């Protein structure tokens, strides 16, 4: 060719039809795009091909005559001719299947995979029909548990390397591996080390045979019995797309859907198995009212009348609403309208002092997950451990770092699940992350590197050099024992990096939808404030709050002080989730009236609720979800709610009606129409756009009227030599009420240990695992202690909401940092 320009497409002939393939595209992908399916077992579009199973062998002619080539390993080249239906290809397909079935038991009628099994399907389509193998098949112990939820039947395994490749290259948890050789080759774990991965359920989903099965679905149903709808996972804020599958009106399985901008088909086990809580025997099937010390079932009209009489008697300023992240966007909007527009209180907060300043999250320039994962870019983590809090985000970030040359710089108080692949892990002293951020930005902008927050000048200098390309800063709360202001200040420092964008890592379910719906003091729906946005709501709402109300810490302090008459818990559990248990307990003891909307009775409800309104769950009502990027995706109803439980927006409408105002909603569509009409940022939210964006969702961009807040100027108190500074970080599995009601997740909450740097540990002079007294200004815990070199000197790390030892016992929500003394008990 005389033309030196690089070709943008390659001409490939597939079964006689010419097709334009992309450079670098694998033959199996090009054929699929051209509508020709090539059978496969080991090939998976989200993992590197390995060519293990040989099922995709096809006759390929590149000018030297046809030869059998694995289509999953062969990049397309110009002029390539592929024959997928010749006798040669057919013969090898039949041969490979006969070979794979030599050791595969023909137990399809009793196999859980039967009916949705690629091996079964492809044997029917391409197989020889009969086997010539008459000898004994190999035998293994029938299914062995490789962790608490996943079972492995090695007899059925065809050694495709999908699960082991996933564990190695995607999750980074190399705990399953091929063992032995030849005919004895098998997938297994190390003898006493289970496949303890937060992502183990994905291996079950991608297993092309019935070798891997998961406890929650085993023998529950047959694939042809299942009804399925596309929805969104609700346990964290990534908004992973899922297929919700039910049988006989009960959800029994969730599968990940490959959404290119979000989760690539992967799910964390928490997202995958959390539906069990919705099937719990303890689900509320009817409203409850308090009679003496007990909550007893009652009818809706009784419960609503009691709730409404409490609300109508109260001065609006003495009503407060805490929570809302569990709700759909539509229910959140309905509740914002009820609380702020009808009742007239601005004491509304969907975060429990465990999040960030909403104006920081909404006001800063935002990045999508794809932008954060730009190949060759820089990711600065100034927030929680994504592996523990937002599993789907962790997998995307890990892929960007490991496979796409992105550089990760961690500014976290301790090591995280991403530390093994991070370019630089800088661990500032708790409360001083803003100082570290300032030093890093100065060094990156050509200034001298100086030590800050306990991190040396050399470390800061070398990290600053790594900042290049697109810069995304992930913000969130790495520790709930230091105030959100620390992150605000750090984020504002990092905003000075040229071209930097921010990705929020607030974890709690639909928290970003809650902020967009105005469930925060001073905000109205659609990323606007009560000052800037009031005019737009004049027609749709009876009124808007005149002045900014209290946040959750303020509400609870006011309640403890006797200044709140009615507290609404909108799917929240302040006792366990608020960063400051002593204050939450005092507030709930003092506040005279508590109305709760929830699916299960949590500790706060049991302690204080007067009326509990039974709410429907994520798979039981329709709506939409907003993920951490601001991406709206649908949640569809799959099953009917238990008993008389109903959607949160219906409850809001019902309360409003009894208060003498019609919210004007008769469906989620009618709520969406009002959101699109009144919001400055949601004008593109219409039913057609939403339907077209079924898998990838609809990205809602822009900051609306929200201005970036100013620097708070936190300065943590001096650190005395006898104390350690507390780091309270969340883990994937904790003692939350939903996980307590999920049989497969219940046992996974780690028993609590206080982790100290070995230097600090030695000073106490006790053995590993000894129970020590940990005391702060507001509370005390008895916990076992152990050394951990990943914890910096001077810090003490305690998991959040661990069974039996709630870290928030020690936390004062109004102090910048939490110092604890650790002593022999």
């Amino acid at each position: 060719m005389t033309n030196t320009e690089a070709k943008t497409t390659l001409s490939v002939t597939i079964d006689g039809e010419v097709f334009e393939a992309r450079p670098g595209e694998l033959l199996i992908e090009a054929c699929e795009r051209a509508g020709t399916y090539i059978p496969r077992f080991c090939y998976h579009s989200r993992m590197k091909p390995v060519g293990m199973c040989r099922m995709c062998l096809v006759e390929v002619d590149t000018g030297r005559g046809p030869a059998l080539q694995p289509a999953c390993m062969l990049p397309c080249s110009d002029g390539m001719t592929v024959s997928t239906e010749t006798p040669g290809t057919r013969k090898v397909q039949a041969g490979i299947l006969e070979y794979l079935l030599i050791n595969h038991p023909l137990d399809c009628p009793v196999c859980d995979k039967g009916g949705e099994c690629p091996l079964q399907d492809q044997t029917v389509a391409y197989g020889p029909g009969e086997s010539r193998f008459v000898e004994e098949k190999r035998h293994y112990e029938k299914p062995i548990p490789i962790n608490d939820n996943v079972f492995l039947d090695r007899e059925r395994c065809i050694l495709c390397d999908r699960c082991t490749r996933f564990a190695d290259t995607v999750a980074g948890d190399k705990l399953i591996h091929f063992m032995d050789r030849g005919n004895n080759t098998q997938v297994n774990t190390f003898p006493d080390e289970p496949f303890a991965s937060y992502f183990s359920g994905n291996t079950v989903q991608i297993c092309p045979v019935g070798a891997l099965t998961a406890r929650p679905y085993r023998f529950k149903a047959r694939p042809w019995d299942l009804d399925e709808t596309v929805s969104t996972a609700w346990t964290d804020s990534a908004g992973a797309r899922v297929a919700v599958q039910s049988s006989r009106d009960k959800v029994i399985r969730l599968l990940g859907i490959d959404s290119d901008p979000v989760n690539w088909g992967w799910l964390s086990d928490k997202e995958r198995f959390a539906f069990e809580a919705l099937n719990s025997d303890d689900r509320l099937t009817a409203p409850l009212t308090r009679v003496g010390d007990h909550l007893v079932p009652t009818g809706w009209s009784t419960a609503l009348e009691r709730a409404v009489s409490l609300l109508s008697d109260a001065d609006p300023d003495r009503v407060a609403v805490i929570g809302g992240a569990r709700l759909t966007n539509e229910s959140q909007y309905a509740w914002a309208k009820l609380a702020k527009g009808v009742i007239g209180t601005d004491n509304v907060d969907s975060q429990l002092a465990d999040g960030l300043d909403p104006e920081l999250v909404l006001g800063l320039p935002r990045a999508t997950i794809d932008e954060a994962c730009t190949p060759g870019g820089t990711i600065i983590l100034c927030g929680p451990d994504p592996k523990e809090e937002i599993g789907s985000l962790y997998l995307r970030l890990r892929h960007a770092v490991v496979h796409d040359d992105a550089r990760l710089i961690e500014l976290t108080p301790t090591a995280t699940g991403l530390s093994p692949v991070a370019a630089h892990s800088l661990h500032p002293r708790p409360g001083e992350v803003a100082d570290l951020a300032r030093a890093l930005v100065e060094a990156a902008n050509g200034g001298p590197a100086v030590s800050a927050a306990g991190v040396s000048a050399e470390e800061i200098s070398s990290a600053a050099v790594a900042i290049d390309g697109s810069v995304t800063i992930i913000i969130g709360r790495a520790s709930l024992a230091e105030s959100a202001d620390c992150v605000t200040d750090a984020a504002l420092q990092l905003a000075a990096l040229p071209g930097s964008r921010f990705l929020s890592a607030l974890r709690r379910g639909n928290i970003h939808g809650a902020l967009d719906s105005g469930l925060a003091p001073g905000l109205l729906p659609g990323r606007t404030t009560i000052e800037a946005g009031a005019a737009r709501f004049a027609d749709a709402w009876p009124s808007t709050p005149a002045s900014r109300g209290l946040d959750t810490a303020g509400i609870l302090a006011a309640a403890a002080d006797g200044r709140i008459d009615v507290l609404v818990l909108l799917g929240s559990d302040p006792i366990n989730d608020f960063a400051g248990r002593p204050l939450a307990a005092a507030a709930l003891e003092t506040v005279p009236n508590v109305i709760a909307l929830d699916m299960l009775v949590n500790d706060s409800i049991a302690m204080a609720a007067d009326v509990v309104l039974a709410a429907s769950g994520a798979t039981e009502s329709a709506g939409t979800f907003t993920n951490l990027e601001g991406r709206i995706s649908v949640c569809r109803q799959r099953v009917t709610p238990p008993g008389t439980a109903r959607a949160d927006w219906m409850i809001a409408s019902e309360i409003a009606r009894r208060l003498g105002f019609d919210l004007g909603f008769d469906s989620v569509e009618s709520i969406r129409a009002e959101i699109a009409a009144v919001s400055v940022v949601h004008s593109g939210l219409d039913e057609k756009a939403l339907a077209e964006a079924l898998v990838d969702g609809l990205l809602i961009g822009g900051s609306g009227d929200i201005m970036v807040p100013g620097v708070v100027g936190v300065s943590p108190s001096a650190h005395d030599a006898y104390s350690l500074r507390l780091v309270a970080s969340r883990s994937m599995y904790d003692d939350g009420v939903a996980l307590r009601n999920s049989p497969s997740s219940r046992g996974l909450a780690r028993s609590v240990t206080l982790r100290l740097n070995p230097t600090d540990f030695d000073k106490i002079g006790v053995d590993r695992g000894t129970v020590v007294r940990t005391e702060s200004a507001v509370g005390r815990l008895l916990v076992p202690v152990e050394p951990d070199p990943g914890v910096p000197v001077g810090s003490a790390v305690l998991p959040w909401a661990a069974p039996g030892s709630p870290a928030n016992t020690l936390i004062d929500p109004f102090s910048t940092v939490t110092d604890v003394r650790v002593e022999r008990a």
Partner: protein
Amino acid sequence: MSRFSLDNESIAREIISRYPRPKSALIPLLHLAQEQDGWVTIDAMRHIAELTGTTPAEVMGTGSFYEMFKFHPVGRYVINICSNITCQLMGAESLLEHAEAKLGVKVGGTTADGLFTLEDVECIAACTEAPALQVNYRYRLRVTAEDFDQLVDDIRSGTARDIPEHGTLSLVRQSIPADRGAGIVPPEQAREVSVWMARNDAAEQN
């Protein structure tokens, strides 16, 4: 069930330092573990994983591919009698029967005193000297029943000095100082002629 001794741990670290990636040292470290305990113990694999930054599953997955790594206790002397065609024609079957009778164990078994494990093996590449066997991978060729009895007696009396205990690859451990190593660098960093090639070039010119 033991981890590396302090001495062996320092040898392990030296072995790891010879490779651009610690994981490359898995096989030599498995040999070291087998040399220490006679077989590869669970704790040793865990220790290897710690030293090389891998997981125990990767260590076991790698090691279990190889028949010569034993993941269960074996005798201090492992006798492998070849059972392939040439040796079979030359009397390997009767030799194996004799060995079973002499040691009082079946093929695959270990004597009660923990001294001998008897195995039959596929071809050990000594067809011209059939029937052949190996004791801890040291050959004995054209073996008769009397030779076998003598071998067992020699081992029992401690006079078979050329045969180390199971797991020891070589009676002499080579110590390679860092500057005499091959100087292998990871491929992505390989910009210049490698150390060993430069050294060979210099030697040729002298």
